[in-house]
Every structure is written in C-alpha cells, then in structure tokens.
C-alpha cells in the first residue's frame, strides 16, 4: 500500500498486477497452466528465449556437444517494450534458463534485479573474447561485473547496386552520402522506420561535424531533435522512397525495384544475392553501426538445480561450433571467430563455408577498425526518440 502514496515510485509490475486482479478469474486457466509448467521444469533441457536470428536450423551439434536438449522459443527482441513486458509482467525468468536480447536492453533489467550476475570462471571460452567487445558500452554496465555474454555482433551499413550506381564493391569503402544525400539515389533510397533512422542521422551529423552530438546511439532530447530535423529535411527533399519496418520489407524493396540503396541488415543482402541480384553490403569509410546480441541468465534460473547445465549451454554459444554455423547462416560475427575457424577446419568444411567464416574475421579487422557507434536497444530518453520518430514519419 505504501507504493500508492503520492509521489512514491510505483513499479509497473505492481500496477499491471493490480489492474489484472479484476480479470484474474478470466485468466484462471492460464494461471493453472503456468503453475504446471513451472512444476515440470525438466533437467537435461535448456529453455531459451531469443531473437529468431539466434536460432540454428538444427540443434543436433549443440545436443551432441553438451548432452542437453534445446527448447528454443523465438521472440521479437527488437520490440523492446514487448520484451520488457515478457520479462517483468509475464515472469519470463520462471520459464526460461537463458534470455537473449539486443545488447543494451539488458541493462535496465539488471537494475530491476531480473538478471543473475555471471560467474565467468565457469565459462572456459569467455576469457578469450576481445576486451573491446566484453567492455563495449552496450554490454558493460561500468560496475566491474559481468551480466551478459556477447553472442554475436555486426557492423551494419547499407545494401546497394554497384553496377546500377557505378560504385565500387567491398572492401573498397563508400560513405553514407550515398544513402542520405545523393542526387543519383534521390527517391530510390530506403531507411529504418524506427529510432535507428534518427541515430543514423545523428551519426552522420556528428561525423561531418555538422552538430554537437555526444553519443548518437543515446541522444538527449535536444540532440535527437537536431537529428530528426536533418532527417526531415532529407525526407522532404524526396531522398527516401519509403521507411521499412520488417526484414521482409527490406527484401521486397530490393526485389521489386523500389530502391537502389537501402539501409538494411546484412542477411537481407545475402538473401537478395541468392535470388540472383547484383547487390553488395557496403564497407564504409566514415562510420558503421555496431550492434550485438547478448545472452543472460535470469535471476530465477540462478536458483534452479540445473544451473551447471545452463553454464554448459552458455559456454557452448561462445564456442567454435556456434560461431562457425552462424557466420555461414547469417553472415554475423560470433564472439570467438578464432574458435569458429578452428572448428570449421577441423570438421573439414568445404572452402566456400570456410571463406564465409574467414570473411567475419576480416570484417573485425576492417569494419570494426573504422569509426563505430555501438547502438543498444533502448536509449535513455526513449520517449524523446519516440516523439521525434513520429515527427519524422509524419513529415
């Protein structure tokens, strides 16, 4: 009751639960189901919730290496609000042993006491991860503790048609003018329909020294307004054919001939290339957008009897098998690409697959040496970003 006193902070969880009380009778079947599910947590099985790109097509190697079964539940982790709801209001930690998020999103969950502190001495592959990754601003909370392991990461840019635009192919570097400020691509460019579009605007302005922006991935209200003003100016100039929201839309934009250049995910370019189109994913001289997927152990799981199995599973994700598989499947860089290459060679993989693994090692040496901005899932002033994004979309 003290929560309800004027001015005292009231946790969203308690409000949601109080509001739900009136409908508890209607929810009775699911509550019963929930308690049964908790009671039947099976040892020998790892229950993991994470983004769809985390999942492998086949978990047999995981099962062979760890002796555990994988029960993977896909969740749109990019939808940060829904993810927080799942963790805070729906007690995801009661149902999962491992929770994967975009790195950065886990930080508020650490503050809320939802994440167990990691004992990294139980992860034999952890020490070999580069410090620049382990201590990246999206992963490290600055408290000298480890809360999440980096699963994979990437340096994002944009996809483009080199022939049609008369541009060089990677690894020759291009710059972001091609997407944001170019007569040739006017009306034939596309960009994210979410806050990342504004962050890109902020990165561009900072890189060109057109505005004072401390961290484009975590802007203040006035900084994000400056970035939005610039993006609105470009939108009004007719630069963007559309703003996309989903992976399928990225593919459709390329395949249907709507764009010549598009800010997109690397797997989208991989996919479109597979359909016979001459598309490349740019290496940039000015900046890249770095992001990471992180995995943590929910605080509830830390008290469970299968904690040793959870650590065994987590360590497998930091090993060579997962890094190599993911490099081929998605083109993403695993935490330990050195182990990935070792694994691929030892397993006798064909040359093209080994080349895909090596490409990720090269990527770390090239793209990650260029200026980079790490983006987390949720900037501190999310409301300001949201309001400015709505203004940009409405322009």
């Amino acid at each position, binding site marked *: 009751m003290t929560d309800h006193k004027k001015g005292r902070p*009231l*946790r969203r969880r308690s409000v949601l639960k109080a509001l739900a009380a009136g*409908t508890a009778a*209607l929810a009775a079947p699911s509550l019963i189901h929930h308690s049964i599910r908790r009671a039947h947590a099976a040892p020998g099985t790892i229950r993991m919730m994470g983004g769809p790109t985390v999942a492998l097509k086949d978990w047999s190697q995981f099962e062979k290496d760890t002796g555990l079964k994988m029960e993977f539940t896909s969740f749109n982790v990019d939808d940060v609000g829904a993810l927080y709801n799942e963790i805070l209001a729906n007690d995801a930690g009661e149902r999962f042993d491992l929770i994967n998020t975009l790195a950065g999103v886990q930080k508020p969950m650490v503050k809320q006491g939802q994440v167990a502190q990691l004992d990294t001495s139980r992860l034999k592959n952890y020490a070999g991860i580069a410090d620049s990754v382990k201590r990246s601003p999206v992963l490290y909370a600055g408290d000298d503790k480890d809360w999440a392991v980096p699963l994979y990461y990437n340096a994002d840019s944009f996809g483009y048609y080199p022939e049609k635009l008369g541009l060089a192919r990677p690894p020759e570097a291009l710059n972001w003018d091609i997407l944001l400020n170019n007569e040739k691509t006017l009306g034939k460019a596309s960009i994210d329909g979410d806050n990342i579009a504004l962050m890109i605007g902020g990165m561009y302005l900072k890189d060109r020294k057109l505005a004072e922006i401390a961290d484009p991935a975590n802007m203040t209200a006035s900084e994000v307004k400056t970035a939005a003003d610039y993006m609105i100016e470009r939108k009004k100039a007719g630069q963007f054919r559309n703003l996309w929201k989903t992976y399928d839309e990225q593919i459709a934009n390329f395949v249907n001939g*709507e764009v010549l250049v598009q800010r997109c995910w690397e797997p989208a370019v991989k996919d479109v290339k597979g359909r016979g189109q001459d598309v490349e994913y740019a290496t940039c001289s000015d900046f890249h957008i770095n992001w990471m997927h992180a995995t943590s152990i929910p605080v509830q799981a830390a008290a469970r009897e299968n904690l040793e199995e959870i650590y065994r599973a987590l360590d497998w994700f930091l090993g060579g098998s997962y890094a190599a598989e993911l490099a081929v499947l998605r083109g993403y860089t695993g935490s330990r690409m050195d182990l990935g290459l070792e694994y691929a060679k030892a397993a006798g993989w064909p040359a093209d697959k080994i080349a895909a693994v090596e490409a990720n090692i090269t990527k770390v040496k090239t793209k990650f040496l260029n200026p980079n901005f790490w983006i987390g899932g949720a900037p501190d002033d999310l409301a300001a970003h949201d309001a400015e994004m709505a203004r940009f*979309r409405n322009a």
Partner: protein
Amino acid sequence: MSAMRKGQAGTGVEQAAIGTITVLWVLGVLLPILSLLVISFIQGKGLGFVWAFSTKAYADILVDFRIEIVLRTLRIVAAVTLIELLLAFPFALWLAKGLKPGWLKSTLLILLVVPFFLSPAARTIVWRSILGSEGLVNIFLAQTGISPEPVSWLLFSEFSVHLGLIGPYFPSMVWPLFISFSLIDDELIKASRDLGADAFTTLRHVVVPLALPGIAAGLVFTAIPMLGDNVASTLLGGGNVALIAESFDDLIRAMNYPGAAALASLLVLAMLLAFLVARLVLARRQASEGGIFAEMQA
C-alpha cells in the same frame, strides 16, 4: 401453480444469465477502458509509474504532429467509409432485392465472408506487386507509352493507403446493408411503384429511410475498426502516411503507456461522440417519420 413455478425458475435463470453477462462485460470491457483512463492520468517514469495525478500524457499527445496524424486518420477513414457506402449500397441492394435466391447469390455471400479468413497483411501486400515501380500498373503504363517513367505516387502514398483499405472493409459495409434491405417488405416497394413513384423516388422515400439503421450500422462497423488499422498504412504507406494505429504501436514500443492510454482515451471519446451524433440524427429522423405516420392515420 407449476406454470407459475416454471415462470419463476425461468426468471431466475434469465436474471442469473443477465447478471453473469453484466459481470463479464464489466470485467472484460468496462474495466480495461477505465484502466486506460486511469493510466492516462498517471505519470510514467522509466519502466515504472509515479502514483501522482498528471495531465502530462495529454500534453505530450496534443502536439502539432500528433494532431495532424489524428486529423489525417479521421480524413482518410471518412473518405474510405464514404467510398465503401457508395460501392456497397448498389451492390447490397442488388444482392438483396435484384438477385433471386440461387447458386449465384449463395456464392456471392460466401465470397463476402472470405476476406475475414485471410491474413490482413497477406491481402494487403499484393497491392505492392500491382502498384510498385516495377508493378503491373507501371508496366502497363510504360508499354502503352502513357508514362515511360514509373509513376511513384501509386505506392507509398495516401492513394495506395485508400486503395488498400477499400477491399478489407467492403464486407463490413455490405453485410448490414444487405440485411437491412432484405428486411424491407417487397409489398412496400410495389405499393410505391403502383402509386406512380419512379425508381429514384422509391429509393429516396421508401428504401433509404427503411434501410437507415443498416446504413448507420454499416458506417459504424466500417469506420471504427478502420481507425485501428495499421496494416495498410504500414505496408502501403511505407512511412510516408502516418496513421493513428502506428502511433499506438510506437508509444507502446517506447513504453510510454500513459501516452498510449491518453491517445486511446481520446479515440474512445471521439467514437462516443460520433455514436451520440448518429443516435441523435436517427432519433430525429424517426420522430419526423412518426409524425408523418400520425398525420396519415388522422
């Protein structure tokens, strides 16, 4: 005595049923709406709330671009609803009065139900391959020499959003109209013709007044769900046509729950006002018709 007991038992069952439905309605409908109202007046703070009365959410929502989004949504919904009425009225009238019962009528009625079974995204996305830069329309325009360059406003524009909304909501307008027309006694139409009224006069003075409840229901069933549609604006607007449903998504994604609740409360208020206006118009219409009948009887 036994009949009386049966009657009393029947009344008891009826009262229990009414009581149960009322409780469910309060819990399932009224409580969430009241929760919306309460949340819209709470202060949001990070992942939590501060239990203090605040109108900040309304102040955040009532800014120029959000008002523009609300007005644009209302304009597009009104325009598409009117188009639906113009298209559905003759079709439903023909279906109810012009077409004899048979396989054609049954088939058409079944076809009207089909869209309810399709994914909204699946039935909307097809417009992209028709209206896109390399879509069917642009290929036709290029091959006929009408427009050698692709017409860009066909897609990712208000035009494509209008077009994308027409198909999915057509059955919502047709069904109430069809039922309303079907309930009109054919003898009344014959009587009007016998008294020398032409087709238009019969339509205006007999069919439309009697179908008015169906027209009102059609407008409500079409316009209100359309207010919450985010499929057409997302897939065919391409970020160039912001509608209110996307604002809800964005506010919830940003965990601005008081903002989303404030926007929803305003929308509920707008719907209540629209309902009250429709009810007043219908009541006035019925009162004036009642007067005519009273005069006729005198």
